[in-house]
């Protein structure tokens, strides 16, 4: 290759290394051309842009919420009265297992990943995520995993050992002979890889792609939440990967990790799984808190009080949550010293939540509230989550835990914290950001009805489940006898679940209706403080015409004309702006702590390789259920796709 060719190659990848700043006004048309996805079906499989991929996560996650919800309704119907026979025991077990897996892994986590992917670049003033193709790969893996799960479920081989699949029930084919648990292994395995990719991507983006001037202390709370979530995923998800792989090996190649007769240990599984399992619930809860904070600041019309303490409390919660996993199996026979430690730790994990709630209330107290649907959901969040939180504290009290562990009391707790702490914040967020995502406002009237119906329906459904638990109703039973006296409360719960579902249905209606005939939102319908409200709705693929420079925590409320303290390069922002090229996908690379510009990051263009790589991994995992040979085959295919991914390798060459 001649020097000249090489120079051309580099040019192709990066644009010229040294050039003078662009002169004149920005050129949106050029940007449009640079960032355009390919047309047609090819475009569908090759887009890597954060907004498209993020939105795909959100929409797919919502579909899984509906699917998991319908499963829940079938379960509730079966349990409405004693000795009903709506579904068989076998189907019921697949229902609650798939419901749990769907809600935890396929709804909640990807939903918030998607929100983070969509919003983080907007909020930190980047044009895209740092590694757009990684995000796309993550999405395709998620989709393959979800399809595998539900194809299995529809074919009658859904997972059937509960969402956490305790060994040896899950790990020995003598106890779970059907393909269901293999599907669990495959689907969760793929999903974890997807989540890990997203985690790395979000972390790197927040570390390196903040707009000039956005120091850590100027990051919106939502971005903090996304960062903490991603770090938690980074350290927690590998554990569940291990747990699933070990179960898979026990089932498929005859290892004995969890077989007591052969030197294995069933309780080992619980340690490995719950080392992930507990952080998992905070992986869901933390970004939800981020959503709450974002909407709260806007609708309370004042900056978050005690911002840095709240940000720190997220970090503290993330760290503490790795020290409490044993509280999910206090009843396996643990020495008292262990019980004491983990009980105390589980209590203390509530302190950050207390701080967060106090900060929310403080913000409202000193603010001027706009009481719209989004805010109503925030109120719903506080009320429901506090009730779920205090039952969590009760569960941490070991002797009491022994009484209600694995009973409907736990089912009630988990729905209070998950629906209160994730679903309600999610709706608050959807009402808040829908205008940004689509350019249309959601209908407020319908929204208020939705809130009221969901709030009532939710409490009717799940409040009585506390009592059922105290009355001795174990979880995961497909039926019960009339003489136990659980019929009435179960009926109430079932009725409540239909009400709740109706509320969610209203949202679907609202969504479809508003998309077609909602009011136009404009750029900033809420007069909100963060950067995403400075770009058109929906944001263009290139996001910012002029890459912003940040001088305050709430740039749209408080542009911070006079940079305080030491003047940094970022404060000379005017000179920086024209640096970012418009004929290449570029964004600023900045330093982690201070947001000092360091480089121009060359972002990746549309590419077919993410989808191909996901197929290679999918072949390995899905195929392995039937023959282990698919694993090496998938590995080779994956290697080939990686070659293609990095082709032509010439980016290293200097001009």
């Amino acid at each position, binding site marked *: 290759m001649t020097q000249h060719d090489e120079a051309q190659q580099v040019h192709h990848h990066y644009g010229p290394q040294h050039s003078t700043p662009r002169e004149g006004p920005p050129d949106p048309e050029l940007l449009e051309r640079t960032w355009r996805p390919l047309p047609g079906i090819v475009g569908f499989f090759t887009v890597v842009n954060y907004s498209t991929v993020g939105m795909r996560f959100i929409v797919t996650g919502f579909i899984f919420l509906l699917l998991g919800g319908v499963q829940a309704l079938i379960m509730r119907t079966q349990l409405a009265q004693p000795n009903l026979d709506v579904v068989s025991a*076998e189907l019921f*077990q697949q229902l609650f297992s798939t419901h749990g897996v769907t809600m935890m892994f396929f709804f909640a986590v990807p939903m918030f990943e998607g929100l983070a992917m969509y919003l983080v670049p907007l909020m930190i003033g980047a044009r895209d995520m740092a590694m757009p193709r990684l995000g796309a790969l993550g999405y395709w893996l998620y989709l393959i995993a979800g399809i595998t799960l539900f194809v299995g479920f529809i074919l009658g081989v859904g997972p059937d050992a509960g969402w956490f699949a*305790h060994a*040896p029930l899950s790990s020995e084919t003598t*106890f779970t002979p059907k393909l269901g648990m293999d599907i669990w292994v495959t689907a969760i395995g793929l999903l974890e890889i997807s989540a890990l990719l997203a985690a790395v991507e979000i972390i790197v983006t927040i570390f390196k792609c903040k707009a000039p001037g956005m120091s850590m202390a100027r990051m919106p709370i939502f971005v903090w939440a996304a960062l903490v979530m991603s770090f938690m995923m980074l350290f927690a998800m590998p554990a569940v990967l291990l747990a699933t792989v070990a179960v898979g090996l026990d089932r498929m190649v005859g290892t004995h990790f969890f077989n*007591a007769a052969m030197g294995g240990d069933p*309780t080992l599984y619980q340690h490995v799984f719950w080392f992930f399992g507990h952080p998992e619930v905070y992986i869901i809860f933390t970004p939800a808190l981020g959503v709450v904070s974002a909407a709260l600041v806007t609708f309370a*019309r*004042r*900056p978050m*009080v*005690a911002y840095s*303490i709240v940000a720190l409390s997220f970090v503290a919660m993330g760290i503490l949550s790795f020290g409490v996993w044993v509280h999910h199996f206090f*009843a*396996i*026979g643990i020495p*008292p010293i262990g019980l004491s430690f983990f*009980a*105390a730790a589980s*209590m*203390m994990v*509530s302190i950050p939540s*207390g*701080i967060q709630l*106090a*900060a929310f*209330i*403080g*913000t*409202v107290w000193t603010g001027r509230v*706009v*009481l719209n649907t989004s805010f109503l959901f925030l*109120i719903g969040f506080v009320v429901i989550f*506090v*009730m779920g939180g*205090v*039952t969590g*504290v*009760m569960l*941490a*009290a*070991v*002797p*009491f835990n*022994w*009484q*209600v562990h*694995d009973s409907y009391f736990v089912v009630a707790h988990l729905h209070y914290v998950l629906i209160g702490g994730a679903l309600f914040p999610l709706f608050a967020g959807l009402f808040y950001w829908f205008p940004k995502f689509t350019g249309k406002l959601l209908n407020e009237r319908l929204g208020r009805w939705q809130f009221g119906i969901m709030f009532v329906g939710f409490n009717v459904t799940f409040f009585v489940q506390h009592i059922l638990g*105290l*009355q*001795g109703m174990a979880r995961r039973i497909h*039926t019960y006898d009339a*003489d*136990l*006296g659980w019929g*009435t*409360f179960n009926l109430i719960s079932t009725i409540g679940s239909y009400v709740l579902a109706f509320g969610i249905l209203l949202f679907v209606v609202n969504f479809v209706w508003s998309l077609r005939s909602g009011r136009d939102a404009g750029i900033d319908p809420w007069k909100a403080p963060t950067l995403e409200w400075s770009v058109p709705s929906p944001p263009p693929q290139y996001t910012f015409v002029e890459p912003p420079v940040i001088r*305050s925590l709430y740039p749209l409320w*408080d542009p*911070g004309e006079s940079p305080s303290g030491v003047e940094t390069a970022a404060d000379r922002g005017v000179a920086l702006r024209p640096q970012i090229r418009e004929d290449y996908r570029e964004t600023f690379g900045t330093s982690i702590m201070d947001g000092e510009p360091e480089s121009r990051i060359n972002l990746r263009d549309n590419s077919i390789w993410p989808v191909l790589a996901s197929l290679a991994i999918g072949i390995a995992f899905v195929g392995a259920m039937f023959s282990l040979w698919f694993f090496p085959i998938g590995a080779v295919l994956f290697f080939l796709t990686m070659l293609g991914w990095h082709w032509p390798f010439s980016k290293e060459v200097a001009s």
Partner: protein
Amino acid sequence: MRYQNHRQDHLPQVPSMRAHARAGRLVAAAATAVAAALLGGCEMPIALDPRGPAAAEIARIWWLLFWTAVVVSVIVFTLLGFAVRRARTSARTDEPHPTSEEGARIDNRATGFVLIGGGLIPALILIAATVLTLTGLAVFDRPPDGVEHTIVVRGHMFWWEVEYPEHGVVTANEIHVPVGQPVRVELESADVIHSFWVPQLHGKIEMIPGKTNVIYMEADEAGTYFGKCAEFCGRQHANMEFLFIAQERDEFDAWLERQAADAAEPTDDIALRGRDVFVESPCAACHSVRGLTPAAAEAGPDLTHLASRRTLAARTLPNVPGNLAGWILDPQGIKPGNQMPAVNLEPDDFHALLAYLGGLR
């Protein structure tokens, strides 16, 4: 399920709640009343209606936690309510927000609230709750005095093997204990993880393959308590229940003595024939009858004193002759996925077998 109609009314009842003491307590009691009215006097295995020292201690902890939770929630809701009202009265939509500097001034006061109201006070409450937990734990730490009997309970998919090793007694799905005296229960599993739970007497503890857990059970009052497998263990997890029966001392001793004896000799011809049928049919491969079969068969419940038990198949059916016949004919129809296959028998043999089993008092 085909036999469901049977199931509804004939199950032994768990004892009626002591009407007085805890009647006022919370919803659980109110619920009992509602349910009782609807179901004609049936009672529930309410954890908060304890009949033993362990459950009583747990109930004590619960009530403390419960009232703490109520107080905390009410405070939070009140604060929130006031905050919203306060903020609303000063609100005009689209009101301009304060600048950062203005915000910062309010912030200083709010930070104190956040740290004290959100951090310090909850921390103190939580420390108190931790102390409560630890003192509670200490109670469970020491074995109670006066333990005389050890019972080994082994969980199987989906029934309970109950053994009194000191007395050579093996039975199933029914645990008898003397009232007012703690017994040592050793919990094991033959296959997957199960969990042993008698809500009115004690919290649950799991039965884990390769491990023996120990729990001390004591009932203050004679009665029949509902017990349940609480850890999901497969298809018939829901129907893996048992009866925990606390009896007066002499009653218990008599029971133990009867159970320790070998199986009753059949007295009539049909039953005698039934005995042969049993030995020759596949039944004996899974079920033992002490004095008749070599003790090896452990795949199914010991049937030595089958007829003395109140329920069949881990509290799935009341033990009445019709149900026994139904069970043997179609165990998979009654309890789909359980480990007992239907066995093909000639009608005559079948009736003889029934007569024999019916005589195993």
